[in-house]
């Protein structure tokens, strides 16, 4: 029986999220994560006053969290609840009341009646009857009726002590290798890392290593809980629309269906043979290793710490709990971990659990079988495991051309396990080994000569290569002469034999095609599968790969491609060398990293910027963030018609707005004294901010006036002078208007100035120009709508490549409208509390380039974003627009979509991403969102290269298909009327496709009437309509 010596303290398992439900096939039953997210104590209970407060479940004592689970094994029983061994407190047969805010009603996986009674979590399991077992004597009353006569093989491992494991003969020290960032790093960095790792491997010469890579199912429930905790005031639920709980459940279901798994890499160093005395003492009486024996190895173990802890692998000692996890994952290769262990996030493994969890796993083999079948006899789960071994390898160019060869498998959409047993030979051993081989080759050549036969030319070639290698070994650095002779295995699993073999074929083909590594599928699968278990012997000496340590280091099984934070909304997955979910909280940079909240989106037209902008706006709105989206072309306005958003959102169509809506003086808010600290320092700071705001107003007014004037006039030097004088003469306060400028010009007495005033007056007569003149209508943006979409429906945007002289009058007006509309969108964010979360999405930001006020706007936005907790998303078609404004240092998050037309633009996009240029990454940008030329379907996904606030860069595939109907509402692609996309092919404006929705929804007490009458009636897409193609998974 497994024995533990944990000092009597209640020890956590240490990695609670390691043990939750996992399966790479979609779960048949309701997954554990469908559990409702738990409310968090201390969070404000207040809800928006305009809707019924979301009833949250009162905080439950922490002990109650495990009320329905008291043993890690309960849910391992698929059927009815197991009869409690010690019915301590009968629990009334009533299901747990789900909180009303949480996923709607997912039937609890724990059987309803009778509820299992609590059993102390740490209670040791009764001794399992086992042939040859030496556990405590079993009392007569507890004796099972039927003995378990299945054959049992004890693991070779006898003890886990700290990070050391003991078998009868060997001692092994285990280290955890943290993940390292690989993608989009300069080749020099990656080479430096490989060299550092190879030096570390060279430092382990003389020992046998066991490199194990296992996977941890992604803790979707933990993520959902974190997201819920970080969302104190989600959008109130609307009858008939998915609730906040449904929203979280949908994301978790999606995560589970994609079987995201995170890798964990362990390195074991078998460094000492146990003495006969120690082995005999353990066999006859002593439990485990002795203190003297462990102290004997302490010094050597410290050397391992030193070697592995430095740059390169940065390994750390594993904990016994991690080793137990590794043992379990190795015995139950590819099988699901116990489901409910981490569903509650509580440490549940205890004394005897390792035995209990390993002994359930039955193993079956068939003669010449291609797989080994594993069956969990308690849950009935069945897995077929095929173990592949690395055969011939062609030369690899890592990192220039090839991916790390033991990381490469992660690009496939199912998790695999890796086990490598490696003997590291130091320079002396390597040279002796090679010299012996050279002598044999020379002897063979001599034999041919003595027998008067022509020796095969390969012998001479191999002898020459051996000579060169020998020369490198004797004259080179130790790291060049050290060799790694090892056996490398990959375990592929599937729920059926056919699925397993199909996956095996895919792995073999992928490795053969892209890496030119021949993976072999040998016989004796059961022994090979057993080789994955720490301490078990090598299955076969075949397929021994002899390589320099640099090639072993270039395997980099711990390479990772994580990007984003783990507390934001699910926006997709990485699509580079591995598949990991990508979460993005746009307020993470400000709230945690204390950085600016400016995020930039760059892509060619059709690259998916607007849709991504809309998706992020939707997700933020669901979390109760005040969102303002500026979408000049208008399709994002359909978001406001989504049932869950409709009561809390509105559309502001500028083309139909009242006079003065875009009055430039009023667009720049006056700093408020209460937002600055008390005292003289705060007073001075506030004074400076007020002056800056005035200066910015003058700059904006001058630019707007220049835009309103004919280009021939505005280009003259005297125009700028007169405008400057006029602007200086008018108080730069919010209450001033452009009419004051005209008055000032006309009163100047100078003929050219008067003429300028007349020209501005002429402009003011145009219907759209009325937006700039006069005072803004009161309360235009002072509403409580969570989502506001500002559009300029019907406005024709100019082509910036054409000279301004050739623009039509409407196009000329579009330029100042866009400038001021950007200001208007941001202006709304300054109206609320300074610390509340706000998000502004600005499309078509490239119109800001070339104007002083444009750069000052973005700089101000970036600087204010932290203070005002404002996430600012800026979309542009060309990275040059952002680089030209010189604000790239203030950018925290970057999305770059497909850029295939122009190599220079791609290089600039890479600069924006801070990725080395001319390293071949331009081709990556060109390959994003690549269309299959043979297909007539629309591309179902969009890809971006994303750089997060921590500087990690990765290729991501945006996938928001898990939000019901979101893609339908976000579909910005024009299509033929009646095809179901709901978009007007002419102008991209939505066309009514059905009668307005009739679902009753709570109304806003705030001025919902602010929705202009000219706003087009955007109907909700019927639920039965086929989903539009957009950012689906594309899988």
């Amino acid at each position, binding site marked *: 029986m497994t024995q533990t010596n944990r000092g009597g303290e209640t020890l956590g398992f240490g990695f609670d999220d390691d043990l939750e439900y996992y399966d790479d096939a979609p779960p048949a039953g309701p997954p554990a994560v469908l559990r409702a997210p738990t409310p968090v104590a201390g969070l404000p209970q207040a809800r928006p006053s305009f809707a019924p407060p979301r009833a949250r479940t009162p905080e439950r004592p922490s002990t109650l969290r495990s009320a329905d689970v008291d043993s890690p094994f309960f849910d391992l029983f698929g059927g009815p609840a197991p009869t409690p061994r010690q019915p301590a407190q009968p629990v009334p047969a009533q299901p747990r009341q789900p909180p009303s805010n949480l996923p709607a009603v997912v039937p609890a996986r724990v059987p309803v009646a009778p509820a299992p009674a609590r059993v102390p979590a740490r209670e040791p399991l009764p001794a399992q009857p086992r042939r040859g077992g030496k556990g405590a004597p079993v009392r007569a009353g507890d004796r099972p009726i039927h003995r378990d006569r299945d054959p049992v093989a004890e693991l070779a491992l006898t003890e886990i002590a700290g990070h050391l494991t003991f078998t009868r003969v060997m001692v092994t020290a285990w280290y955890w290798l943290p993940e390292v960032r690989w993608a989009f790093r300069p080749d020099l960095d990656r080479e430096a890392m490989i060299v550092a790792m190879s030096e570390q491997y060279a430092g382990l010469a003389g020992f046998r290593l066991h490199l194990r890579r296992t996977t941890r199912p992604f803790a979707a429930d933990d993520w959902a809980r974190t997201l819920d905790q970080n969302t104190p005031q989600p959008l109130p639920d609307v009858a008939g629309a998915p609730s906040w709980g449904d929203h979280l459940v949908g994301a978790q279901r999606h995560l589970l269906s994609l079987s995201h798994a995170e890798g964990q890499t362990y390195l074991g160093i078998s460094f000492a043979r146990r003495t006969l005395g120690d082995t005999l003492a353990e066999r006859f009486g002593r439990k485990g290793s002795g203190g003297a024996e462990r102290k004997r190895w302490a010094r050597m173990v410290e050397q391992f710490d030193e070697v592995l802890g430095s740059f390169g692998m940065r390994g750390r000692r594993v904990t016994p709990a991690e080793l137990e996890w590794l043992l379990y994952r190795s015995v139950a290769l590819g099988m699901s971990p116990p489901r409910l262990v981490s569903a509650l996030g509580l440490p549940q493994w205890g004394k005897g659990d390792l035995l209990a969890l390993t002994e359930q796993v039955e*193993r079956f083999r068939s003669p010449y079988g291609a797989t080994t079948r594993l069956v969990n006899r308690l849950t009935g789960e069945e897995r077929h495991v095929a173990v592949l071994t690395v055969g011939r390898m*062609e*030369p690899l160019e890592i990192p220039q051309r090839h991916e790390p060869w033991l990381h490469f498998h992660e690009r496939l959409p199912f998790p695999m396990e890796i086990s490598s047993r490696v003997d590291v030979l130091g320079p002396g051993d390597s040279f002796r080994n090679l010299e012996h081989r050279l002598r044999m080759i020379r002897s063979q050549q001599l034999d041919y000569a003595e027998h008067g036969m022509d020796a095969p030319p390969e012998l001479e070639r191999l002898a020459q290569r051996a000579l060169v290698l020998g020369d490198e070994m004797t004259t080179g650095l130790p790291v060049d002469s050290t060799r790694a002779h090892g056996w490398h295995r990959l375990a592929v699993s599937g729920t059926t034999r056919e699925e397993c073999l199909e996956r095996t074929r895919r792995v073999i083909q992928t490795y053969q095609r892209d890496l030119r590594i021949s993976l072999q599928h040998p016989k004796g699968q059961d022994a090979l599968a057993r080789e994955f278990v720490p301490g078990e012997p090598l299955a076969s000496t075949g397929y021994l790969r002899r390589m320099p340590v640099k090639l072993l280091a270039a395997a980099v099984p711990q390479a990772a491609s994580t990007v984003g934070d783990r507390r934001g909304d699910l926006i997709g997955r990485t699509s580079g060398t591995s598949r990991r979910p990508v979460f993005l909280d746009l307020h993470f940079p400000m709230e945690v990293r204390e950085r600016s909240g400016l995020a930039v989106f760059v892509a060619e037209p059709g690259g998916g910027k607007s849709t991504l902008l809309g998706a992020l706006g939707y997700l933020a709105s669901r979390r109760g963030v005040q969102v303002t989206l500026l979408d000049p072309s208008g399709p994002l306005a359909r978001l406001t018609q989504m049932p869950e958003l409709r009561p809390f959102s509105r559309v502001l169509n500028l083309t139909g707005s009242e006079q003065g809506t875009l009055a430039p003086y009023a667009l720049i808010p006056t700093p408020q004294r209460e937002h600055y600290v008390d005292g003289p320092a705060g007073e001075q700071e506030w004074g400076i901010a007020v002056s800056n705001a005035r200066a910015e107003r003058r700059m904006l007014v001058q630019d707007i006036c220049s835009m309103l004037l004919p280009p021939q006039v505005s280009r003259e030097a005297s125009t700028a002078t007169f405008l400057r004088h006029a602007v200086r003469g008018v108080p730069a306060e919010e209450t001033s208007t452009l009419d004051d400028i005209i008055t000032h010009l006309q009163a100047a007495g100078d003929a050219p100035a008067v003429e300028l005033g007349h020209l501005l007056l002429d402009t003011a007569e145009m219907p759209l120009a009325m937006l700039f003149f006069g005072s803004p209508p009161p309360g235009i943006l002072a509403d409580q709508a969570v989502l506001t979409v500002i559009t300029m429906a019907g406005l024709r945007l100019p082509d910036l490549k054409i000279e301004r002289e050739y623009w039509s009058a409407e196009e000329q007006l579009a330029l100042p409208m866009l400038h001021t509309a950007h200001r208007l969108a941001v202006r709304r964010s300054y109206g609320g509390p300074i610390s509340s979360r706000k998000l502004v999405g600005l499309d078509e930001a490239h119109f800001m380039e070339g104007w002083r006020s444009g750069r000052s706007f973005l700089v101000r936005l970036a600087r204010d974003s932290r203070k005002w907790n404002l996430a600012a998303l800026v979309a542009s078609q060309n990275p040059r627009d952002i680089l030209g404004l010189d604000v790239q240092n203030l950018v925290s998050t970057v999305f770059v979509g497909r850029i295939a037309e122009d190599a220079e633009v791609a290089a600039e996009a890479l600069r924006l991403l801070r990725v080395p240029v001319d390293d071949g990454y331009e081709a990556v940008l060109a390959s994003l969102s690549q269309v299959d030329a043979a297909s007539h379907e629309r591309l179902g996904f969009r890809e971006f290269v994303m750089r997060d606030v921590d500087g990690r860069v990765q290729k991501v595939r945006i996938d928001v298909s898990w939000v019901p109907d979101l893609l339908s509402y976000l579909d910005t692609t024009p299509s033929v009327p009646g095809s179901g996309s709901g978009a007007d092919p002419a102008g991209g404006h939505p066309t009514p496709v059905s009668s307005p929705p009739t679902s009753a929804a709570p109304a806003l007490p705030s001025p919902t009437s602010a929705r202009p009458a000219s706003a087009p009636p955007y109907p909700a897409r019927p639920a039965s309509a086929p989903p539009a193609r957009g950012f689906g998974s594309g899988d």
Partner: protein
Amino acid sequence: MRLRTDDDIYRARLVYLGPPGYTLPFQLPYAQYGVFLLLVPLYMGIHYLFTFRFDPVPAWEIALSMVTTSVIWRYVDPDRPARTVIRTALTDWRRTGNAALAQEQRLPRLVAGKVTIRERLP
């Protein structure tokens, strides 16, 4: 960084050409002779179990050993040592084809029954 294995050096085909002054008409790997020399006494032993006498000229044994060696070497290559081939043959040779899949054998369960766990080193 171009990286390659050293495997080709170890994959050189080393064959026995014959004693000095005489070239055998066939060239076989040294290991094949080793297996042959192991198989001959094995077959002689089996023959002895049936007849209780040693044949001074073990012609049948030599012939059988040659055939067996030849069969084994059809499956042996640098990545698949003779030991593995023989072991697989001993466990699985009797069962081939689809029928073999039905003849699933239960393997002993791997149980961590005697693993002592200490939280930390003293």
